């Protein structure tokens, strides 16, 4: 029978997007970082003994789950054949919004696209094209995102100033009218 603390560590690491430091885990579970380290070592051993397809590793000062290195060929196939094509059009639009509207929150990106953009934003972040740049000073302190240096490099741009100017792409009058109509309907 696994202890509550051990199970809580598994639960937290399962949902964490970044390695979690033993100090933080200790704080959440009201135990010493030393104890956390001991429990994590036990867990890692148990996964290995059970021959699981994942490992619990210590990386960048924290713990996280990873796929087992043995299984990299399968993961690579998944990455190549999996979800990519479906994402690309949406990803490019989302990236364009961040590039031109930065700093911008996820909620703002979703509002502009008219669909939830969380998943796409996460992908762009993992890719390293988009990064957190600030916090909204207003209530809620939403994280604000901008494009990264890698993004500029990949596009062969020196700086954001070299992005094609937006004015060239200002929508024509019929589009503006449609927009206004849409806004008016919303204000009703």
């Amino acid at each position, binding site marked *: 029978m696994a202890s509550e603390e051990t199970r809580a560590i598994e639960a937290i690491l399962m*949902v964490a997007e970044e390695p979690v430091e033993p100090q933080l885990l200790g704080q959440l579970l009201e135990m010493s970082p030393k104890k956390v380290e001991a429990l994590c070592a036990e867990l890692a051993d148990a996964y290995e003994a059970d021959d699981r397809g994942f490992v619990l590793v210590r990386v960048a000062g924290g713990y996280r789950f990873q796929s087992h290195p043995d299984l990299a060929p399968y993961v690579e196939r998944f990455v190549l054949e999996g979800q990519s094509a479906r994402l690309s059009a949406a990803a490019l639009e989302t*990236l364009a919004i961040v590039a031109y509207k930065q700093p911008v929150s996820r909620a703002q990106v979703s509002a502009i696209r008219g669909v939830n953009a969380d998943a796409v934003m996460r992908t762009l972040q*993992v890719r390293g094209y988009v990064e957190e740049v600030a916090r909204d000073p207003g209530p809620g302190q939403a994280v604000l995102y901008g494009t990264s240096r890698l993004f500029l490099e*990949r*596009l062969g741009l020196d700086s954001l100033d070299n992005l*094609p100017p937006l004015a060239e792409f200002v929508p024509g009058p019929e589009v503006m009218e449609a927009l206004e109509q849409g806004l008016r309907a919303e204000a*009703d």
Partner: protein
Amino acid sequence: MPYEVSTSVFEGPFDLLLHLITSEQVDVYEVSLSRIVDGYLAELDRMDHLDLDVATEFLLIAATLIELKTKRLLPGHDDTDLDEELQLYAERDTLLARLLECKTFKDAAADLERMARLAGRSHPRMAGLEERFIDVAPDILAGVTPADLANALVRALTPKPVPRVDLDHVAPIRASVRDALEELVIELPRAGRTTFRHLTGHHRERLEVIVRFLAVLELYKRGLVDIDQAGNFGELQIAWVGPAEGDREDLSTADMYD
């Protein structure tokens, strides 16, 4: 005050009516139409800012309720013609059906919320790809030029076709409120003093009557007419108190319905 309810809670007329009826539900046989109608009208009264879309629905239902109440108050009142009576029952049945539908979805919504709350206790793993696989994944920027990016932005900003169709059932009402205002601004100064019944005499459709009613209310709000009612369900007396005939500057009142 039997119904301490705030309008903001009620999203729509069915919502309000459902609440009024089911809060009466202590004993089925004590449900009182009279009190429901009073509660409903009190609530309407409290809505200081009546959105036209919303108001029309509310008023249609209020009209049906009042008719039902009148019927109940006047047992054996048999000089109404059979057609009218049948129409009233048909309206009552429609209203009942819509109330039932509304209640069904309300309960379904409560269940969805319960499911979402339960599911929300279990959080998904969203960590995504480990760094070592990122180079393997197809790169969305492969072969993309700055111009492609700008085009993607235009695509993102171009509004998807706004489904205007949805407002079509409302649009003609707006137009006719404006029309009705224009007609009344001419008609009323000439008549001086008249009754609502007279003003709507040649309008057979319920909607037309309501549109004229809204127009009269608008004029009243603007201080152009006085409204007087001789007791409950008495004739509505309407008197023009605006500028004399021919002076049309106040037609701007219609602007808000553009």
